[in-house]
């Protein structure tokens, strides 16, 4: 039996009276790449944010490698070390250089020495193709470069699972490619990934499983071929029809 990296059980989330997630069950195995599709407001980003508790789940349970993160007694900072997240708005620290961004949490959270953090930062920046930009400040980088620094920053923490929240949505079309290429390489290296995106081409090429969410529930899931070519649900057909 393959080990479950992330297990979501009957996840509910309310924002005030609005029920955004209405009972989501999902299990992601180690090394699996799951792409989550769905219209705006379907709860896909909220679900992702619940997985590293940037949002508190209202009901249900979430496990990361057998640790229940929804349990208030869990040290969430320890769990977050295992979960990397990349945001739509990059959220790089503007007062630090690219390398500084990648080094900070390594030193403060993993207590790596300065030299070690420096070495790993260079390694990770090289992996995302930015070894020549390590001393640049975020303001001096393009959106695509900033997003790749953000990925290097998350990867430097040696996460067991990576969450991608619409990471290409804020980018100019010509910059999307470079970011997706890094993600493809990451997937090929066996990283467990949860990807919320609107890039259908990426989903088709890279995803092991595609999940279609609508109105707070998982409407349909399966391999890319099953979901894209033979959708069963009418909502899925409707959504895919709109974006094709």
């Amino acid at each position: 039996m393959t080990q479950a990296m992330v297990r979501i059980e009957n996840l509910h989330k309310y924002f005030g009276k609005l029920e955004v997630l209405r009972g989501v069950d999902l299990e992601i195995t180690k090394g699996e790449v799951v792409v989550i599709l769905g219209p705006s407001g379907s709860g896909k980003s909220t679900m992702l944010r619940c997985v590293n508790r940037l949002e508190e789940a209202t009901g249900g349970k979430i496990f990361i490698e057998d640790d229940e993160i929804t349990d208030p007694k869990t040290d969430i900072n320890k769990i977050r070390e295992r979960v990397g997240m990349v945001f739509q708005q990059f959220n790089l620290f503007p007062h630090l250089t690219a390398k500084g961004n990648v080094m900070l949490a390594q030193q403060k959270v993993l207590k790596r020495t300065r030299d070690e953090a420096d070495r790993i930062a260079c390694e990770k920046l090289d992996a995302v193709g930015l070894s020549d930009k390590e001393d640049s400040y975020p303001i001096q980088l393009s959106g695509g470069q900033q997003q790749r620094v953000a990925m290097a920053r998350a990867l430097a923490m040696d996460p067991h699972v990576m969450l991608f929240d619409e990471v290409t949505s804020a980018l100019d079309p010509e910059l999307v490619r470079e970011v997706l290429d890094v993600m493809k390489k990451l997937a090929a290296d066996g990283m467990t990934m949860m990807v919320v995106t609107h890039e259908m081409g990426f989903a088709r090429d890279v995803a092991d499983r595609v999940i279609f969410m609508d109105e707070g529930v998982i409407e349909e899931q399966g391999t890319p071929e099953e979901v894209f070519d033979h959708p069963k649900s009418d909502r899925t057909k409707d959504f895919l029809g709109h974006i094709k």
Partner: protein
Amino acid sequence: MQLRMRRISLAVIAMLCVAASLPAMAGAAGSQTTISADLEITKLTADVGEIIISIDPGDTDLTRVELVFPDQMGSDSIKGRDVEVSVDGADVTVAESALEIDFLDGLAGADTIEVVVANLETPSPGEYQLTGSSFDGTTSTALAPVTLAVPSPNFAQDAVLWIEDQPFLHLFFSPVIIAEALPVLWKGFQVAVFILFFGYMLAMPGGLAMSFMKMAKTRLVRWPATFYIDVVRGTPLLVQILLVYFGITFLPGYKNFIDALGPFASWSWHSVDATQYYRIIIALALNSSAYMAEIFRAGIQSIHKGQLEAARSLGMTVPQSMAFVVIPQTVRRILPTMMSEFILLFKDTSLAFSVGVFELTLQARTVQARTFNMSPYIAAAGFYLLLTLPLGRFVANLEERLAVAETGHGPQKKKRTGNRLWSRKPVKESA
């Protein structure tokens, strides 16, 4: 021939006489008392001076010197208290325009004796003779006269005299009164800066604590901070100063506390006591901390929520995220505002005059009250500008540079539109 001989002999006798007198004169130069004198103008208006006279007793056993000042130097103005003699035990008598100095205890082996006569009215420009005589116990010898030159007023002195003559201008820009006020104003300036510095330092941690309180989720924590900030920002600083400065002394245990402080409460500097400093600094810090709390809060909240989320998603704790991600960005963002608060607080120190703390404004007021002249206030304003003008320029520069650092370009230069009051062009309304 005989006639010629007599002429020659007369010439020889004359020559002999001259030759004979030469060694005598040379001896006199070494032994007689000589004086030299120097006149110095001591007032901006050039009407008061000081004469410094050096007396070289030579070989004589000098017991008494009499100095006669020129009539034009206003004999009335020479007062005994204005005369200083460098030898101990000298007795000074002022008679008419003459000065008699008796060396009762001898000269104590002094090579030269210096006599300074201050606050002397200077006559109109020109040259005057200072005469006198020396007395060695048996004989009185006339001193070789010394010339005192009173210079014509220079341009600056003329300008000063001109301003002092103006009926209106001298009430605000009197150089004489400003010059007189400068030393006390400088003291007051130092006191103001001292109060400013410590008030500001004290207000910062208080403001930071209150800003976090105001951002707290719990009402019990948030409300006291909100209440305090609203009250302090909504009432005049003058009322707060009166209330706190005097109110502190009514606190139970105040006396005991001050006693316990011992030497820390008993020092004083520039005519302000330690407890005065403490009380006014606390009053200003209490006020400033409320304004700072709002500056800090606005600064922290202006940092995008995503920054905290990114830091948290990397496993950093809330204090870590604050310390290494949010606060460093906040500091850069609020630096100009914090410096403006520094300038504001400096100007606010002037209100300490109302409770009798001798800072810049009260010092100026004291001179003003004595002279019935506004000039000390003008000078005090100059002292305030000494700090506020360069700092203000610096803040403006800093704002621009930080804007460049944050956005990659500076703030949009405001286009000058023709709506200035003195513009001759018709006012154009921009769409």
